[in-house]
């Protein structure tokens, strides 16, 4: 394993020190100029797990800006960044999109290794060691050489989440991570990603249409988006 703490190439000059990992300011995911009360504010504090449930659960942070308001990631208005800087900045956050987004022509091992190869200045051996570390942590040893189409849905989801945390990001955004998984598998998946390599809790934001009873106890804060307004609590 590498002696260096971070696998990530540094991204200079973007973001604000001490800013919350994720903040929504006057955001609306619907064109609702006539209903300004349906714009919501939400701040996600560092090291916490937050569930955002409701119909609008795909944020795509930066690539698909909301019709109104702005989303700040580590204090940076991510949608306003030039494309090249946005790409560099995006490596600071892990992201699981709806489905899994695995590259079909690569096996699961290569999928997990891709962000490490691209955004790390580590030696090939160090990258390979980190990939094996993540594969072992996610119990994918038996499936690592399969392509996504040959793997089960649970293996694919595990591989996609493993890829999202390969660079050990401070902020992890999981879109509908438990869809198609058993309660046990969903709970196990969430437990796997909670901690960073240095033992600090990771900031995790989970978006879903609904959360199952098995994972709800692991998510201290749940915010429901109701017709565009944010309501604390899942009731």
């Amino acid at each position: 394993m590498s002696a260096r703490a971070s696998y990530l190439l540094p991204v200079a000059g973007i973001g604000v020190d001490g800013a919350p990992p994720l903040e929504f300011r006057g955001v609306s995911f619907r064109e609702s100029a006539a209903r300004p009360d349906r714009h919501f504010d939400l701040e996600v504090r560092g090291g916490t797990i937050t569930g955002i449930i409701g119909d609008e659960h795909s944020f795509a942070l930066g690539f698909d800006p909301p019709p109104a308001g702005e989303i700040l990631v580590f204090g940076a208005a991510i949608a306003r960044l030039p494309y090249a800087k946005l790409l560099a900045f995006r490596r600071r956050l892990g992201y699981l999109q709806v489905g899994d987004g695995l590259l079909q022509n690569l096996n699961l091992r290569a999928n997990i290794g891709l962000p490490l190869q691209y955004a790390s200045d580590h030696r090939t051996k160090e990258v390979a060691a980190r990939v094996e570390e993540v594969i072992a942590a996610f119990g994918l040893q038996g499936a690592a050489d399969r392509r996504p189409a040959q793997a089960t849905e649970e293996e694919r989801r595990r591989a996609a989440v493993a890829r999202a945390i390969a660079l050990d990001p401070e902020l992890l955004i999981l879109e509908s991570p438990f869809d198609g998984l058993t309660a046990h598998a969903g709970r196990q998946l969430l437990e796997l990603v909670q901690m960073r390599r240095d033992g600090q809790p990771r900031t995790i934001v989970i978006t879903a249409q609904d959360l199952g009873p098995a994972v709800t106890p692991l998510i201290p804060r749940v915010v429901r988006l109701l017709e565009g307004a944010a309501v604390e609590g899942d009731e």
Partner: protein
Amino acid sequence: VTAVVAAIGQSGARQLSVIGGLARFTLRLIGAAARLTRAGRLVTLRVLVNQIRFTALQAIGLVSLLSALLSFLVISQSAAQLGRVGALEKMGTIIVVAVIRELGPLLTALIVVSRSGTAIAAEMATNRVMGEITALEAMGIDPYIYLVLPRVLGAIISVACLMVVFDAVALVSGFLCASTTGMSIRGYSQIVLATLSAKDVWITAAKGISFGAAVALFCSFQGLSVTAGPTEIPQAVTRGVVGTIVAIFIMSALFVLLTTA
């Protein structure tokens, strides 16, 4: 009359829009390549090696076969006709002008379009439909660098190398044909070398670069332009292949105009 003019205008506007889109696509690729990091270069190199394996190495057999057959067809017909009028020495001109200068690059590019152009367009369209482009961007990877750049470089290198293979096989095959008329290898070499010039080497290199770039750029552009879903994938492949074939023929004609002017 208005309807006809409108239809022509619409078609023209569509073509212009495609050319404009392709120009933007190319400029964006150049911009992405200029920002390539060291780690990005290594990943690109790995994908590039794979592309050359698929596009060039695996096509050598097909290119050699078609080159040998084309050369056989052209030389056997030419030898028969030229022999009648006692102008066998003109065979070298026919080999160089018809096979090496014109048909070789054209046929090589068409082979690459049919094998790799279709694969590139289908793969890119699938990448788009399956959400893989979003996934790459989410990982901070520019899809132009990871997907398009290695394919463009791979196609340029592959088409140029396959043209050399095509020409070499055509010359050998041409000799085998010519030898049936009693021509010696020395006589054949003299005839061919008398017609070949350094200009042919430069033209072949220029055609390799431009045809290769056309195959990968046009097919990638059409593949990535898919938005509606899986049903659009075969349409994107067709648009990519047809557009590339037209572009290659137009470029061939431009090469003739430029080099004979």
